[in-house]
């Protein structure tokens, strides 16, 4: 399907930038309005806003797709400064580096395994409930 969409006009890059900037601007205002006890980062609000605008067909896919997919393709690179940020406090790695690595290892395995198993269980239960409802309706 994306291949066929080539015929669609992609919006000019500055228009795409303007849509992203507008969403970020609104999102940053909404983020500032959130109480300090419930912080919602600007990008999260922006993500939900853009998703809603797309789903409600207010913003067309071809208005944001070019720039958006370009930015996503860069995401690995964009995280480089976040990684290098630890150079500001290498002491923490000297003090707790091994412990931090251990917890990351545990967290990695636990997140992967627990998420996979819980999902399997939830889908199985959901199917059983749905199956039960169908059974009821037949009765």
């Amino acid at each position, binding site marked *: 399907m994306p291949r066929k969409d080539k015929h669609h006009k992609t919006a000019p890059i500055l228009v795409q930038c303007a849509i*992203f900037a507008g969403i970020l601007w609104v999102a940053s205002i909404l983020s500032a309005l959130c109480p300090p*006890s*419930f*912080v919602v980062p*600007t*990008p*999260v609000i*922006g*993500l*939900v*806003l*853009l*998703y809603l605008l*797309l*789903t409600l067909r207010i913003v067309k*896919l071809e208005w*944001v797709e070019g*720039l*958006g*997919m370009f*930015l*996503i393709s*860069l*995401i*690995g*690179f*964009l*995280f*480089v*400064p*976040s*990684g*290098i*940020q*630890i*150079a*500001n*406090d*290498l002491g*923490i790695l000297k*003090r*707790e580096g091994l412990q*931090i690595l*251990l*917890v*990351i290892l545990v*967290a*990695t395995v*636990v*997140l*992967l*395994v627990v*998420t*996979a198993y*819980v*999902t*399997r269980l*939830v*889908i199985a239960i*959901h199917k059983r409930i749905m199956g039960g409802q169908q059974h009821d309706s037949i009765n």
Partner: protein
Amino acid sequence: MTALTNNLALPFTGIFISLAVFLAGQWLFKKSKGFFLFQPLFFGMVAGIIILIIWGKVQGTSTAYVYRHFYKPGGDIIFWFLNPATIAFAIPLFKRNDVLKKYWLDIIISLVISSVICLFIILGASKLVGLSHSSAAAMLPQAATTAIAMPVAEAIGGNSAVTAIACIVKAVIIYALADVFIKAFRLQHSQIGLGLGLGTGGTIGSAKALQFGVLEGAMASVCVVISGIVVDLVVIPFARLFM
């Protein structure tokens, strides 16, 4: 000499270092046919830190000073682009609205339940090895993608630099060892479950998931986005209650 130092403090230095180390990583990753320690982001991070350490040694200043004065101005500019890049994830999510409409309830329930279970285990592990409060708090939001995890970590008093490290190292571990974990824990039975699980490794985990199948890849991308939102909603109250 001061003119040179002033010039080096312009953003160009940080931008160039970031690009150079990342591209070197990409090249090595390709040449070594995907050796996990050459994963471009991981390699770029380690190489960048080593460059700053050597720079500090040569100049006779601390690494932190070099980071703040010469790397950070450029690094911040690149970092800013994570804002539009994160909201761009609404696009793949929208494109998979068909999968979402069918499984949205299962996905949200699964991710909320599993993130609460994981938070208890991660907090327990942090306490067990005796992490300081700021490091333990930094560990909690790591199920989310880095751009969301970092501000959440700061909101609960964690060190966001440690969170970034956690997210990156976790993604590299998943990329390198996913096959081992899948075999050991028999995760291959549910494509959706496996996809969501690999999605906890962020965008790098999603790339790995795509190797197992299109559905796994789609679910991993969905997980990156939804678990980012779930982490945002669950971790802050969790930290308030249990830390």
